[in-house]
């Protein structure tokens, strides 16, 4: 465990007058600062050798309607060197909701700040491109503000709208300027929002010089559905099915992260068997996720047969998930304080059988791809980005590990029972698309190894915490006992109520760090429920990765980024 006291005292020492308050709640180190000093403190956080917060994970805001000042900006940082975390907060008033942009220090702050601007109307001073990111320019108001009613409807952009979508104006580098000739202008091409070669709904506005990409503007938000607003309007337990729909190719991992964040708010830990079941479910989800990524990549590079093999293998993984929780995709498996069901009978045998076939199919798919000259030509050496640049963008997960950075939360800050397991964390050496592909292939096999270990090691016992304030009583007791009946009623109608406070909790999901930031006001509904999703941060560098490369390179790069629309757009 990192030493928060030491961390906080260093920060207090470095920037004493800028810090208003520090605290350490449930293991989260928090620093509250004066908003006007943000840039200065952020620079210290990043550049100080003892702090070295190189990863800006998240930027968001909490609307404390009725308080002065009203808006609280919340930043989450991580240090890949020291493996410690920090939350930074600063309040800005409603009359002037402005704060310095962190884009000069972390290029990845760009999208995060745009999102905060879109959702809360916070203005970031010095931001290079402050426009809405999910919603259209004509949208009135900022939907995550507490005084924006959830039921409010606005006409979608359409005929009669001003049509003010403004892609970044092309900055034509010198090499592409052809003076006074026909075709001197760049050609603008819209890739998407629905394009057969992108799995996910996203629009990429390209400025092409022939086949060469001069500029790319990635427009996301086509799958934005107000995840945070929806969670804030329901009870904690009602948000679990919505987390399924973040990364729908590995829903259980999203469930696990959310429920563990809520448990962190409560300060409880599920029993050992429950932890094993969560790891088993989560790793099978990771297998399914990687299989989809691998298969879809093959498909989009025109290799149809390996795609079918990968999907057949994924179907087998989904069969396991189905046996576990009754649905292939929308698992809704994990509960606050446990899981919805223990392992079904005969699960170990089923796993053994399906894993065997999955490995065969993966080997077949791999055998068809890795020596194939077309596949190699489109993957090898394509879209390399340096580890430092990736980190500045806030990239995590297989994408970052393929660039050789050893950052896997299961290893870096083991949660659940990962510290009791044997597994390898694959790293790449060159950081190109091929490395990214290979990292996923290896991780998939490691996940099978993890599940097999868990099935061997899993102890008997309960899967749920024995706490009537968290888990619904068994039905048998509800039917016959008064207190339990009442407890059932109250837990359903008012929901479990965590003590006031705030936590951030992250797991290693299939695409990287999936973190939840929850603020509790002591009621049964989250005051703020934020999902920091890897797809969002990982998609941001796409434009830079493909700039100067050929149009054809977008497809494999986008595949390897593995943007999942539900997770990216929330």
């Amino acid at each position, binding site marked *: 465990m990192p030493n928060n006291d030491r961390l906080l005292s260093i920060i207090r020492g470095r920037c004493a007058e800028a810090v208003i308050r520090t605290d350490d709640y449930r293991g989260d180190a928090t620093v509250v600062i004066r908003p006007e000093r943000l840039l200065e403190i952020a620079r210290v956080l990043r550049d100080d050798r003892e702090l070295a917060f190189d990863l800006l994970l998240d930027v968001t805001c909490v609307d404390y309607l009725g308080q002065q000042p009203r808006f609280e900006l919340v930043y989450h940082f991580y240090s890949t060197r020291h493996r410690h975390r920090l939350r930074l907060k600063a309040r800005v008033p409603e009359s002037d909701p402005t704060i310095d942009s962190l884009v000069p220090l972390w290029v990845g702050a760009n999208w995060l700040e745009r999102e905060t601007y879109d959702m809360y109307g916070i203005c970031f001073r010095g931001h290079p491109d402050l426009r809405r990111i999910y919603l259209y320019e004509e949208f009135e108001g900022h939907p995550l503000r507490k005084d924006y009613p959830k039921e409010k409807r606005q006409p979608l952009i359409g005929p009669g709208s001003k049509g003010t979508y403004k892609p970044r104006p092309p900055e034509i580098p010198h090499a592409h300027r052809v003076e006074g000739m026909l075709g001197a202008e760049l050609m603008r091409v819209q890739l998407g929002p629905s394009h057969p070669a992108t799995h996910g709904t996203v629009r990429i506005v390209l400025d092409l010089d022939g086949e060469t990409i001069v500029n790319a503007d990635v427009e996301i938000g086509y799958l934005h559905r107000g995840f945070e607003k929806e969670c804030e309007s329901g009870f904690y337990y009602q948000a679990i099915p919505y987390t399924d729909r973040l990364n729908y190719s590995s829903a259980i991992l999203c469930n696990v992260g959310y429920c563990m964040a809520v448990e962190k708010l409560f300060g409880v830990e599920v029993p050992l068997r429950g932890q094993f079941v969560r790891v088993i479910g989560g790793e099978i989800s990771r297998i399914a996720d990687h299989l989809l990524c691998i298969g879809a990549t093959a498909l989009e590079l025109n290799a149809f047969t390996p795609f079918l093999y990968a999907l057949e293998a994924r179907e087998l993984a989904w069969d396991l998930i189905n046996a576990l929780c009754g649905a292939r995709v929308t698992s809704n498996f994990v509960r606050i304080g446990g899981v919805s069901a223990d392992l079904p009978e005969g699960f170990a045998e089923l796993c053994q059988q399906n894993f065997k076939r999955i490995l065969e199919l993966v080997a077949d798919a791999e055998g*068809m791809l890795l020596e194939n*000259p077309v596949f190699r030509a489109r993957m090898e050496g394509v879209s390399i980005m340096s580890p430092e640049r990736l980190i500045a963008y806030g990239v995590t997960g297989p994408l970052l590990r393929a660039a050789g950075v050893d950052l896997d939360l299961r290893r870096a800050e083991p949660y659940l029972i990962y510290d009791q397991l044997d597994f*390898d964390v694959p790293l790449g050496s060159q950081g190109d698309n091929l490395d990214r592909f290979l990292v996923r292939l290896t991780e998939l096999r490691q996940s099978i190894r993890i599940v097999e270990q868990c099935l061997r090691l899993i102890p008997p016992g309960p899967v749920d915490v024995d706490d009537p304030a968290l888990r*619904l009583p068994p039905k048998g007791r509800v039917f016959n006992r008064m207190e339990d009946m009442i407890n059932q009623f109250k837990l359903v109608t008012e929901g479990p109520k965590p003590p006031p406070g705030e936590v951030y909790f992250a797991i290693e999901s299939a695409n990287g760090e999936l973190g939840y930031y929850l603020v509790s006001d002591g009621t049964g509904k989250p005051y703020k429920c934020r999902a920091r999703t890897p797809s969002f941060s990982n998609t941001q560098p796409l434009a830079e990765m493909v700039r100067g490369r050929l149009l054809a390179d977008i497809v494999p790069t986008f595949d390897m980024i593995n943007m999942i629309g539900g997770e990216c757009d929330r």
Partner: protein
Amino acid sequence: MATRTVTVQRPAPMDAPQGVVRSGAAVLKGMWIASRHFWRNFWGFVRGKPTVFTVQYPEERLQQPPAFRGMPVLVQMENGKERCVACGLCEWACPTDCITIYPAETDDEIERYPRVFDIDMSRCMFCGLCEEACPEEAIVMSHRVEIAAFSRRGTVWHKEDLLVPLRELETTRFPHIRRTYESPAAE
């Protein structure tokens, strides 16, 4: 910590001249893999034990595990009536607000019943939270999944459509319910 990092092994570069040879070999290997799959399926077909992965719905249907969550239905008791007493917990617990209940009084011993019990299947996401909330085990996730309809109104299922005899449910979802909701904390 028992984890370690490994660096993934990249295949040898495909430079000429061996690259040309390896490319040719790769084509042959691909054909070999694909034909293996073909023969496997073919033999399965000949032997009457198909190994084809695709299921020919609706002629064929998958056997679902007990945990399977299909559409939520109402348990119908032996006497033909619903077990539900219109307590409203499922209606409240449902994240998508797709259940509508109007309670009313009856002369039966249990004095209350749902006069109206509608589920809008176009909004239901088969999450099963209603089943967990129900204090009477009266709404359960069945193994039924066919909810397609030609109109918006057609996706609203009324009480009569939702009733499923207890006998059918006993062989599908109930084994799972018994196991998960009663054990392990029950004595």
